[in-house]
């Protein structure tokens, strides 16, 4: 067994998640927002893999889960970027702040 306790992984994941969240919620550049979301998903991956190894009930499926997560995240990023491009074509901006024509 490694000397690195599970908690450390979990903390790392949590911090990563929070950083991603922070980025997703505050960055004005839409690309960075999308990347931040990837960061959050990766935090989950760390969780899954760490749990798969060190949990009270360790199990291999966690790692498989993380594989799927990675794939899906990639797809999501792709779709997100595609939509962003369409948006950029029409609006000439990737600034998230300016995407507020619909409100109230």
């Amino acid at each position: 067994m490694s000397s690195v306790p599970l908690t450390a992984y979990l903390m790392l994941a949590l911090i990563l998640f929070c950083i991603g969240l922070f980025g997703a919620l505050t960055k004005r550049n839409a690309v960075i927002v999308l990347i931040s979301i990837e960061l959050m998903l990766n935090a989950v991956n760390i969780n899954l893999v760490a749990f798969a190894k060190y949990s009270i009930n360790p199990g291999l499926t966690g790692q498989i889960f993380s594989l799927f997560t990675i794939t899906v995240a990639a797809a999501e990023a792709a779709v997100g970027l595609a939509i962003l491009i369409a948006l950029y074509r029409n609006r000439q901006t990737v600034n998230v702040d300016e995407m507020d024509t619909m409100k109230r």
Partner: protein
Amino acid sequence: MDLDTLLSFKWSVMAPEFIILGVATLLSVIDLFMKKEASRKPLAWLAGAGVLGALAAIFMQLDTEVTSILYDTYRLDSFSKAFKILLLLGTLLVLVLASNYKKEDIDENRGEFYYLLLSALLGAMMMASSADLITLFVGLELLSLASYIMAGLERRNKRSNESAFKYVVSGGIATAITLFGMSYVFGLTGETNLFLIAQNMQDPELLKHGFLLMFAFLITFAGLTFKIAAAPLHMWAPDVYEGAPVPVTAFLSVVSKTAGFVILLRFIIITFIAAPGIDSESLLLEVQPYVMILAATTMIIGNVTALRQRNIKRMFAYSSIAQAGYILVPFVSNSSLLFELIWFYLLAYLFMNIGAFTIIQVLTAQEKSNDISIFRGLFKRSPWLAVPMTFFLLSLAGIPITAGFVGKFGIFMGALGLEPAHYWLAAVMMATTLFSYVYYFNVIAVMFFRDGEGAKVSVPSGMAAVLAFCAVSTIILGVMPDLALDFFYGNFDINEFFMNIEAVDTHTHDH
């Protein structure tokens, strides 16, 4: 996993999914090779045939025993059948809307529209049948990704773009939150199979981790509220609904929402039914107040904010938020009526909401506006639109002899059925329902009491059929709800939902 194992599975249980998958693939291929100028309208027939085929397949499966394949990641039980019917029915109706949606932007992408719709449907159906976190997640994402694109289908429409982007970002965050929660659920139980998770939940070791479990539950639950557009992840809905093409809005508000409830039911009920809470009580009992808060908040936000809306699509977005809040109510007490109540409500909701969106689509297309004033004097102009619209609105408001009332009645039964009865929640629900009267009846008032000039509204035959079907169903289910309930009781045994067939074997096999 060799070929033998692969062949040993009873693939026929997946027939509906295969049909949809096949048709979707076929559509994408045909679309690819079709001439750019050629009308994609006929493709709708193909897509429709696919959905009907899948429906037929499900009806043929009605008598099938509960089966599970692919190491119990996919199961065919009453629950999945019951809800797949809803998903398919909803998609079928949305397809008609989609094929009649008139905008230059859409025309070139219409083929895309159809197969995306089917892909989304496929994802939703997978969710209904999943018994594993991974498949559940993949299904969810399939639905989500397809929906993101559909929302932005009007490529040159800034609002459509914006709505798609907002949807992606919100969806991404929601996915991350959900997954984060799920990762803890997995971490505490070490399994991704729902039934195994449930088994491991009874592990005495877990008693120590009541808090963590509670956190995991709440985070996952909150993440999943994205799909159903409930608090706290509901705020995307108005913007996305407003910007997306009307059929997509209809899809999001009905099929996607149904899928959201499917995953909630699957995930929450199976995995947490035996989970220990902080005080070693049942977790589901302990989280009651929190679910209650979420349900109440959703109802209040949805209904209260809807009061100020002038944009009909936005109004329906808030209405749909509110409706999600209603459907969350039975989750609080989780009485044994849960499934049929939610199923019935979603069925009713399907008819009334798609019916309403049909009329909205027709009107917004003709008047080139989303403002509520497009309904002015509709009763004079086109009574055959105004009267069904009234039925839908009454049904949404939960007025008797409409399906919505029976649904709401059932929800009350769910809220008050078990001890302790949740009178406050029921009261909040009724109070917010009263607020909803104001905006629903406002539309009615505009239709009946205001005089509006404007031409008679022409309704394409397909839309008219959807309209008639929805209107008749809304009334019939309101007058004779037993038609649906008997069908449910006669064909679905909800005990199957909890029946773990293969998990036991695999479990022993693993160790």
